[in-house]
């Protein structure tokens, strides 16, 4: 609902001055209804991304090229002086993720919900400005507390630019994270000589966050089954108890996990046997085509 409202306000402010008043209104309503219909169902956020990545058909592709390609595309996106290339890139990568990767469109749209809210909020703050008096060229001005909330043409241009770049960037990141589980990305970081300590810590955190979340969920369910969340006061108290228990549990767990690592001759660095997956023509095309397109656009536009 919030997303739909934000989208409507955003559309209105962006289009104001470019279309007649009723046109803006109709389009805004249309966008709001669209976002409302897409809805967005509940999911476990970051962890569901990891699970989806494991099931992606692009999972078996070379992680180095996927990561490098996504970062290169991301940079092109950020450098683009026109809003069109990043928007095109977003749709291209979204299509690749859904059609080639086999991620369900429903999941993709639902995951987009999170960054989109942030994006809309930040673009709105870029669009609207507060001034003591309304400038002549202001497209929209709303009197407020003796001053005016205004939208200027320059800020409209800027907002569209930021929106497009951010959308393209989200497309790149989703392409990467919905085809490459975190351990693969960490492996790439290891190759480019990121300090081993950083990677080991990231790896262990990745591993144990699953355990932590599962334990937290079990404890919450156990508390809920004993009416721990019956009233506001009770749920406050229960939440405290659950998290305190979780902390104590984690400390005990850490020593057991360390014992388990030691028992397998751990001596200070976490290393696994890793296979470098071959680079396929499919992936070269998948990264090369948009990258080439973006570079041509950049050269032509600058």
């Amino acid at each position, binding site marked *: 609902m919030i997303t739909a409202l934000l989208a409507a306000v955003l559309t209105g402010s962006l289009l104001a001055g470019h279309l007649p008043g009723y046109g803006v209104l109709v389009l805004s309503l249309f966008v709001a209804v669209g976002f409302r219909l897409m809805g967005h169902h509940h999911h476990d956020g970051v962890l569901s991304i990891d699970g989806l990545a494991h099931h992606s058909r692009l999972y078996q592709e070379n992680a180095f090229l996927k990561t490098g390609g996504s970062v290169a595309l991301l940079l092109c996106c950020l450098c683009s002086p026109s809003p069109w290339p990043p928007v095109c890139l977003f749709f291209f990568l979204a299509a690749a993720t859904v059609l080639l990767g086999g991620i369900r469109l429903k999941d993709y749209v639902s995951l987009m919900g999170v960054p989109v809210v942030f994006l809309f909020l930040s673009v709105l703050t870029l669009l609207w400005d507060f001034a003591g008096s309304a400038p002549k060229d202001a497209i929209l001005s709303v009197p407020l507390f003796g001053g005016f909330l205004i939208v200027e043409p320059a800020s409209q241009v800027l907002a569209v630019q930021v929106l497009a770049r951010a959308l393209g960037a989200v497309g790149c990141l989703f392409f990467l994270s919905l085809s490459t589980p975190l351990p693969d990305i960490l492996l790439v970081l290891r190759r480019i000589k990121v300090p081993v300590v950083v990677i080991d810590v990231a790896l262990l955190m990745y*591993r144990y966050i*699953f355990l932590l979340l599962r334990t937290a969920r079990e404890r919450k369910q156990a508390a809920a089954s004993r009416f721990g969340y019956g009233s506001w006061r009770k749920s406050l108290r229960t939440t405290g108890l659950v998290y305190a228990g979780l902390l104590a549990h984690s400390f005990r767990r850490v020593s*057991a996990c360390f014992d*388990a690592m030691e*028992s*397998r001759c751990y*001596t200070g660095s976490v290393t*696994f*046997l890793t296979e470098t997956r071959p680079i396929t023509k499919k992936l070269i095309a998948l990264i090369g085509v948009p990258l080439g397109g973006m570079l041509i656009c950049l050269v032509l536009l600058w």
Partner: protein
Amino acid sequence: MNEILCFNEVSYRYDAGGEHDALHPFSVRLNKGEKIAVLGHNGAGKSTFFLLANGVLRPQTGEIRLFGEPVGGKEKQRQKLRQRVGLVFQDPDVQLLAGTVEEEISFGPMNLGLPREEVQSRVQHAMESLDLLSYRTRGPQYLSGGEKRRVAIAGVLAMEPNVMLLDEPSSNLDPAGQALLNQILERLHEKGITLLIATHDVDFAWQWADRVLVFREGRLEKDAAPAEVFADEALIKRCGLESPMLWKVARALHVPAPRSPEGFAAYKVEGR
């Protein structure tokens, strides 16, 4: 008998724990290819015994010998002990680290500093032994309890230990998982690995083991063949154990207990 591991008057006491968790001096020898069930109630010292045998804990008194050579306090010697004596933890989640099953199994061999080809062949071999080949690129965190346990066992097997210690491997397993585990134990036994299994399941201990260790309140109460252990009813009662179902039935029928239910068929049934 080929002796692999020998505990000589070994004892251990936790800093924070009371009498409850301590292990009083005890001696035991483990030989090649033995199938040993380790019985005792919770907190009797089974897990501490395993952690000592694996070299994670250091004995406070006494001495552990590996192939006749004393294992001292030096890190290198303890690493050797950890390599020769593998430990599979009760909760596989404690053990699993990596993003894929294959990487997970390679953790131990990689720590041994083996060449890449050797690690590859060991990982392959361990996956074959535990029917895990189709799980190669799966994430361990998305597997079921029984599958996780097989990955944990494979991770230890890939280090090619002479002795494997399994802490309650059948806890949380469904009947199918239990049947698969029994097959896997048989395969490990055929490889000549000495198996020690901590368990509460006396039926399993009776049918599977050829030697039983019974712990009670930090003391090794009994180290004998299963028939001798389960014949000692006072011991069973004192240690909070139960007679295996086959023993109960045999006792009711006034016949000696067979190793498997089919064993009863050999007895002559008198007609009415």
